[in-house]
């Protein structure tokens, strides 16, 4: 518990800045919906003018910009999942590696704690903050929709998307955490983590636009919380299974590797 409390305190500012930024971004973009909806036919025609591949990349082949969730799914959700994943992976990959970079790991491991307890404390830290991030961002988005949109919308679809997006953020966090056991140099960790998120996003776009690359949907976590998929077809069970396996494997590998690792400074 003391490691968890310590790391929560040390990362509080990072958490607050990211969460506030993304929540404000989402609320701001949603507030612009009424002006978009006002010119509904115009915006749809504008969207139809896009090439087919671009429409697919943005999910415009299945979602309509003039619909509140269509607007949210194509314009806002991408920000939440992209920046949220970056936040999650930067947070998780810094927890163990920073102890080594700042040489504080010698202090930590000279205490009467097992390596497992160290990993658990760090895990608790990023899970807590990623969940809090999601709660704040999605509740703020939901409240904004209630204000700017009159009439009903697919509430269940919205929360399905919230759930899957949160799970994707946790997946990125777990993968970054695992990576940081092996790559510990500060700059390498952070650029590697950001690069990983962006490559995964690129793979998602590739899976959306190209028939031949469709199989990539099983590879990139981004696709597992695709707004167009979930808002039109609900939560695909296969992604849940893949996610469960990937996360369980990543965590097991993290505990295993960290407990056996030579800590070299």
């Amino acid at each position, binding site marked *: 518990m003391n490691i968890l409390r310590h790391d929560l305190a040390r990362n509080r500012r990072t958490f607050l800045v990211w969460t506030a930024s993304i929540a404000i971004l989402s609320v701001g973009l949603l507030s612009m919906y009424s002006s978009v909806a006002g010119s509904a036919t115009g915006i749809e025609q504008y969207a139809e003018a896009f090439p087919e591949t671009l429409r697919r990349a943005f999910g415009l082949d299945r979602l309509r910009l003039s619909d509140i969730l269509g607007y949210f799914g194509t314009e806002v959700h991408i920000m939440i999942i992209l920046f949220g994943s970056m936040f999650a992976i930067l947070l998780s990959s810094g927890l163990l590696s920073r102890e080594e970079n700042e040489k*504080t790991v*010698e202090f930590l491991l000279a*205490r009467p704690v097992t390596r497992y307890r160290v990993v658990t404390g760090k895990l608790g830290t990023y899970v807590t903050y990623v969940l809090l991030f999601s709660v704040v961002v999605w509740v703020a988005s939901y409240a904004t929709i209630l204000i700017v949109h009159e009439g009903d919308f697919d509430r269940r679809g919205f929360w399905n998307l919230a759930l899957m997006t949160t799970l994707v953020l946790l997946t990125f966090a777990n993968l970054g955490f695992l990576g940081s056991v092996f790559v510990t140099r500060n700059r390498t960790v952070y650029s590697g983590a950001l690069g990983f998120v962006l490559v995964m996003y690129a793979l998602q776009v590739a899976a959306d636009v190209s028939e031949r690359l469709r199989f990539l949907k099983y590879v990139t976590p981004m696709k597992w919380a695709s707004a167009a998929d979930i808002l039109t077809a609900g939560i695909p069970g296969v992604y849940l299974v893949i996610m469960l396996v990937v996360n369980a494997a990543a965590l097991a590998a993290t505990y295993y590797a960290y407990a*056996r690792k030579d800590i070299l*400074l």
Partner: protein
Amino acid sequence: MYVVETENLTKYYGRSRGIVDLNLQLREGEVFGFIGPNGAGKTTTIRLLLNFIFPTRGRARIFGMDCVEESREIKRQVGYLPGEAGYYGDMRVKDFLRYAESFYGRGCRQRTRDLVEALDLNPDARIEDLSLGNKKKVGIVQALLHSPRLLILDEPTSGLDPLIQKRFFDLLTEENRRGVTIFFSSHVLSDVQKFCHRVGIIKEGRLLRVDQIEALRGQEFKRVTVTLRDPSEELSVPLQGVRDFVRENGTYRFLFNGDVDALIKELARHGVANLYLEEPALEEVFMHYYEKEGER
């Protein structure tokens, strides 16, 4: 039972050598100096004892407990002062020490307060704003606050000014008097000579020998450098205890462990432009130490 005991303890980092077949025994209540040049394997040994790294082969025990299997139990009774410490720079001293205390489920509060006071440390200062000496003090407090029975110190005096060094040694002596065993790693010969009961010498990953400190004391070499005023003059020093006598551009260098008074009087017969009497590098002393062993 030994406080620290290693059996053929060996560590390779890939193919590069850490330590090889190290056999060490520390007795309860002693101050054991662990000395050797940089890169000899001192820090590797300490990291194995604390299980920061895993042995390639062999084993180590502290208080009879295995350093890999029972590391957590061991650490309740061990205090460690790292050579180059990192202590969460953005924290205040008192918050950091409270965090350190939180790992030991019993009251260390009073003890911490006493140590902070004894070392004259400002508890409200941010650690990153502290001078090197004050950072070291923070390190000393975190190593001692849980009243360990074994202290492991890695190059503890590096970067300390003489005043703090003295206070530091006083504190350690006091701990030792209360029965705390001390493992003192250093590459500074004089520190070890001043403070330790026994000394182990490590070189290139191997323990060369373990000696009572008195045995080393007889080897108190000084590095002598003399420049004569008249470069054409020849200097010879016909005294006991002169080794490695060389001349470079009118400057003479040698190691000396004989009578200093006799040396000064001998040199006084010449016009001396410059004279240094210094502590020799450890390597230089060792070289002679072992040559002498070989002659016997």
